[in-house]
């Protein structure tokens, strides 16, 4: 575990170094790529709380990622076009201020997770997977059939949303904003995992019947974990829209849910930095193998099979094993 902790610190050092090097050598592409890793890592950390630590195998986290993205896109779209968004119960033309958008994204993601959680957490196993998937697919088809915001073609926003006195259009600055969010999310997740609440939800993953028998309301615990997980993934969706200045229904598709799950599995289920490592590995594969073939996911599938057969607990577990050999 000590080696894993050292490796985790190196991950953070790399996350600081790579974009700085990209800036020094005037390669903004690498800054954007690392920004994408950080954002997808945040989404994975969100899912990991539910899936990795609480055993809630959600196949519908694209719903939160997409909702965060669309809330950001729609608010920004109206603000940039000075178009009325709605006039009741109050008049608003959206907002392009990140400090306004983020709280709205948090509230809307929490609300959606609450609704999905209230219904889906009454089930377990494959039924839970199917219900979460069904919710995300409903949102996906809703987004496709909603012409006001681009329908299938998606929605472009011409300017990145703003923060006071900060130039968010600068790739390095926007990267640092995302990195701040990553550090906040890691800090909050670590606090949760080590708390009494964390003890309860990690126990639920292992033996829910026993946890019930000691008087812990497992439904409430699972619901709260699901909501927190949804909020984190929703925030990632918001940052993703700002990164690309574009949002389309594809981020609501089941493939997105699958990709977030792949980040978690690749990096290591129930490992705090696992999804970040998984996202980085995924992006590196996409960028390298994608240059040779557009069907690079074939190789991803092969790597996943090998990992599940021989490593099982993710890339980070390799460093845990190394420590055991050292002993």
């Amino acid at each position, binding site marked *: 575990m000590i080696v894993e902790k050292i490796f985790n610190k190196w991950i953070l050092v790399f996350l600081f170094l790579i974009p700085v090097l990209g800036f020094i050598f005037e390669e903004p592409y690498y800054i954007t790529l690392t920004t994408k890793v950080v954002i997808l890592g945040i989404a994975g950390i969100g899912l990991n709380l539910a899936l990795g630590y609480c055993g809630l195998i959600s196949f519908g986290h694209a719903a939160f990622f997409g909702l965060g993205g669309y809330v950001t896109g729609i608010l920004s779209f109206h603000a940039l076009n000075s178009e009325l968004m709605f006039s009741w119960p109050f008049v608003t033309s959206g907002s392009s201020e990140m400090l306004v958008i983020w709280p709205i994204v948090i509230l809307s993601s929490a609300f959606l997770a609450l609704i999905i959680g209230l219904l889906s957490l009454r089930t377990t196993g494959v039924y839970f997977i199917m219900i979460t998937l069904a919710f995300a697919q409903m949102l996906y088809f809703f987004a496709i059939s909603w012409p006001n915001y681009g329908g299938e073609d998606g929605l472009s926003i011409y300017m990145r949303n703003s923060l006071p006195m900060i130039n968010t259009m600068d790739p390095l600055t926007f990267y640092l904003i995302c990195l701040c969010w990553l550090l906040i999310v890691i800090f909050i997740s670590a*606090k*949760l995992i*080590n*708390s*009494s*609440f*964390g*003890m*309860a939800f*990690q*126990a639920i993953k*292992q*033996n829910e*019947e*026993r*946890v*019930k*028998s*000691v*008087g*812990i*309301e*497992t439904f*409430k*615990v699972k619901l*709260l974990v699901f909501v927190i997980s949804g909020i984190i993934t929703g925030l990632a969706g918001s940052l993703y829209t700002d990164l690309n200045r574009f949002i389309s229904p594809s981020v609501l598709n089941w493939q997105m849910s699958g990709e977030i799950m792949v980040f978690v599995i690749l990096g290591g289920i129930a490992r705090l930095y696992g999804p970040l490592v998984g996202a980085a590995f995924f992006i590196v594969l996409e960028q390298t193998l994608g240059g040779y073939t557009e069907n690079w996911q074939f190789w991803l599938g092969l790597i996943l099979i090998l990992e599940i057969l021989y490593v099982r607990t993710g890339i980070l577990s390799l460093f845990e094993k190394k420590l055991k050999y050292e002993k």
Partner: protein
Amino acid sequence: MKNKILNIKNLSKSYGAFKVTDEITIDLHFDEIHALIGPNGAGKSTLIKQIVGSVKHDIGSIILDQEDITDLTDVERAKIGISRTFQVSSIIPQFSAIDNIVLSLLDKSSKTFQMFKSVRNNKGLYSNANKILKEIELSEKSDISASDLSHGDRRKLEVGLALAMDPKVFLFDEPMAGLDESGTNMMINLFKKIKSNSPILLIEHDMDAVFALADRVSVINYGKIVATGTVDEIRKNELVRDVYLGYEI
């Protein structure tokens, strides 16, 4: 009624035409250990499951400390004071022994939803957990992962989890199964000590332990209570010898 902490009336459960429990009426007095014995498949564990609420009953009522808990959920019943052990050890395998006990202390100390304070820094919880580990003679194994404990130690840990809840009643389902002699003696002494605070409904196949501990014994067969009485009365009961004991003790 006043001296009864748990009063079960006409509790029944059927799976199709098969009656697992058939209008069972049984009670538990303050300060007593009431043993429930009977052959395998007689309905003992199903009765426990019905009392804790994990198996829904068809008819009947359950009164705990003069409060009707028949319609409460399993979690609500645990919260108001029913604590159990499982027939097959049910622990949190990847938690250490002490963390298992701390988990059991969370609800009582209203710490379940405490989110940003490290549970391991909560000296009060861990001090209480250590006291319980000492009672069940697992102090030296407090940091061992529960999955690495021996079968006997897991049975002790099960009892520790129940103790931590400081309940109104204990429902122990074969707590001594697989324990060696010293483990069984430890349990017998422990149960004698705790019954004055929280009476015990005990399912056990070890007849020596039952006769050493029980104030009253009920015998269940084919889902029906066929006899209830003191240890001496049960020993002398010919029907009981026929259906379960099979010999004179």
